[in-house]
């Protein structure tokens, strides 16, 4: 499906580009206002990530997970649903995969890895499915339901961590039979936590593209998302599409959670708040304009920002929180892409 075919690639890419640019500028203004040197801060951020293979690997670790949560949000939004619950589904994927891994320490790795990822996926699907089901059969707003489910999962996960599968605010480490590490990725990045999940993220980007552009299900999802009435008239079942899109969305988020659980951390700890990967995923999806390659690229950017942020306090004296301000500014400008389109028109970047 190419809804934006009539616009050139440059025009399409210009909006996120300017969003990012303005985000950086606004971030710089904020830093200046608080008496920090934005150039030093940005330098620390980028130099820190790009001159050290280990930290670059760590940025990719962050990007991996964001790709999953971003794709998860995008699937549902293509079908016209606002899955705010990506965070909860992600956390459930994390919880379920760690629980499963702790319970079966002796299944051979070749079986265990697909199993444990599958468990994460099913957990996420199930959790998103609740919202989908309620929306399809009772017309309940998926936005409100998923927001509440996010909080429910936070409590469930913390309870499980403290009292059931772990104690003292964390669980034990999962066995090596679930390890996602592969030698060449670790070697390439000087022993960072980068793992097979990164390859999976790339595969999912491609799968997403194939699903949306070439499968019957993907076609239906988009038709329902673009014009639910016409889709119904054409014989598509709105109920089924709501549920299917939420199941897929939650499943993708759940795999992301499993990769976080058994790939990045190898355990689960008490969360002080809903995992940020959920909302960052929404931002990534918006910045990527629902396009899978765009989502991948935005995840990469966000990964760099998040990783690079850790250098800003030490090298430029800028507090960590200000990095979130930069990210928030970018998101703000993504949301304001409408304004950017108008500005572009005014300055002659695009016709009609």
């Amino acid at each position, binding site marked *: *499906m190419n809804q934006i075919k009539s616009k050139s690639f440059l025009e399409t890419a210009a909006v996120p580009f300017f969003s990012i640019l303005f985000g950086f500028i606004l971030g710089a203004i904020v830093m200046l206002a608080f008496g920090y040197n934005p150039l030093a801060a940005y330098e620390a951020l980028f130099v820190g990530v790009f001159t050290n293979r280990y930290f670059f690997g760590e940025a990719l670790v962050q990007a991996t997970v964001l790709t999953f949560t971003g794709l998860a949000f995008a699937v549902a939004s293509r079908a016209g649903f606002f899955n705010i619950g990506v965070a909860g589904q992600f956390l459930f994927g994390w919880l379920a995969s760690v629980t499963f891994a702790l319970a079966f320490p002796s299944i051979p790795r070749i079986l265990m890895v697909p199993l444990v990822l599958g468990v994460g996926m099913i957990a996420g699907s199930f959790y998103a499915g609740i919202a989908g089901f309620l929306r399809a059969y009772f017309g309940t707003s998926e936005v409100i339901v998923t927001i509440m489910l996010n909080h429910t999962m936070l409590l469930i996960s913390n309870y499980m961590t403290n009292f059931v599968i772990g104690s003292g605010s964390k669980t034990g480490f999962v066995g090596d039979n679930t390890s996602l590490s592969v030698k060449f990725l670790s070697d390439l990045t000087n022993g960072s936590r980068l793992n097979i999940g990164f390859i999976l993220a790339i595969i999912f980007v491609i799968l997403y593209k194939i699903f949306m552009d070439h*499968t*019957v299900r993907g076609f239906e999802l988009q038709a329902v998302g673009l014009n639910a009435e*016409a889709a*119904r*008239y054409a*014989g*598509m079942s709105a109920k089924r599409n709501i549920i299917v899109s939420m199941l897929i969305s939650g499943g993708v988020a759940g795999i992301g959670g499993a990769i976080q659980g058994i790939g990045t951390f190898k355990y689960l700890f008490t969360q002080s708040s809903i995992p940020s990967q959920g909302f960052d995923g929404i931002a990534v999806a918006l910045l990527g304009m629902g396009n899978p390659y765009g989502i991948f690229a935005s995840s990469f950017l966000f990964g760099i920002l998040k990783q690079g942020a850790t250098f800003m306090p030490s090298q430029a004296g800028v507090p960590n929180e200000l990095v979130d301000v930069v990210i928030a500014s970018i998101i703000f400008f993504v949301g304001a892409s409408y304004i950017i389109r108008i500005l572009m028109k005014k300055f002659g970047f695009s016709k*009609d």
Partner: protein
Amino acid sequence: MENIENVVEMNNITKIFGNFTANEDINFHVRKGEIHALLGENGAGKSTLMNMLGGVFEPTSGEIKVRGEKVVIDSPDKADELGIGMVHQHFMLVDKFTVTENIMLGREEHNAGYIDTKTAEKRIEELSNRYGLSVDPRAKVEDITVGMQQRTEILKALYKGSEILILDEPTAVLTPQEIEELMNIIRALAAEGRSIIIITHKLDEIKAVADRCTVIRRGKKTGTVNVADTTQQQLADMMVGRAVNFNVEKGPSHPGDVILDVKDLVVEDHRGLNAVDGTSLQIRSGEILGLAGIDGNGQSEFVQALSGMMPVKSGTIHLKGKNVTNMTPREITESGYAHIPEDRHLHGLILDMSLEKNMVLQTYYKEPFSKNGFMQDKEIKDYALRLIDEFDVRMSSEENPARDLSGGNQQKAIIAREIDRDPDLLVAAQPTRGLDVGAIEFIHKRLVEQRDKGKAVLLMSFELDEILDVSDRIAVMYEGKIMAVVDAKETNENELGLLMAGSSLEDTDSKKYEREEKMTDESN
């Protein structure tokens, strides 16, 4: 100085979309106080030309002068400033807002920072009384009829003080009575010295109100004529470039088995009232049944229930002997049903999807368009291109979103898709709405062709001419009930009009009788 009487001059206007030239070197002049019609086939470039006056598009080249001064109209606001108001082919109202709020939008009256709805309401009432534009200022747009929505659009333009009013196909969605009212309003506005540009495909309307008419064919201007000196046939020939046949040619029908059998159907509308109230109707293969009636007498709900879009409260629908009551749209479609919906934007198309994908909107899941769950892009494209060619859908590329098509071509695309599925029952709701005379001729031919192939056709239309010309039998609906089913050859507009107003057949017979008596009296 000779051009001072022209309030609008568009000179050598060219508009290119990508590599498609929608307008080529067009000169279009409008005088003060005149009603100027713009005529052309679907996709000729009429809306495009007017959108450049209304500030939606900017010309690729050429100049626009308003009241003798060269202007650049780069936004609808700029058009407002110049006193140009446009009522678009597809309305641009906010559904959830009231009539007043819509009219005020962008022109809010302030009172110490607060929006002053009261004053606005008063002004709107004044305007609506003065021009006979009856609206309910407090009603939400989603609750009012299309006719009232249109009056809202016109009021919006007048409220802004537009001196030049562009109406893009204003009559396509109106009932005959509403059209008559609109014509009077247009005349009154012109008499005040305003200039009116009206786009319409209906030649009798041009003859009725317009002073001059400019004809466009495939993006180029054919000429501007004085309407009084030109016949309808001449206008049609100018626009199509060939002789148009206004009569529907068809042989006698040969009705066969009952295809659609509706018994005691009751359908509730959105408010819970019985919109269809115990309707029974049969359509046989090889016949076209016309469904006539004034808008709002249950025809839309009847058709929506047939297609499975609205639930049936009681009664039954059988299609080829199979009970399809309350089945899903998909099940009904698969039983041999096709439907040209009344509202092409709401039900007919997914505007932001490519035209080619829209062509397989009901059949995408079947071979050859998909295999093992995968869409077969090449098959879909070939199929779309065949339909586009066969039904003369004019557009720049099949990969462009359906939104980019002209209104009439969107309609042709839907018709192509539905007829090509070769259904046993084809339900056509207002199929020729917004089509040019050439396209109407073509569509009518295709409906008759379906009939001659032994299919059943239900034609719902508000246009009595169309119903009378195309149908074999005519059912008249009034307040959810079928008043009568008459033979198309043995009835006339008068009788249908009476039935549509709620008289029974016996009543109309006695009236007919009276009339005949009167006539014989007079001739004596």
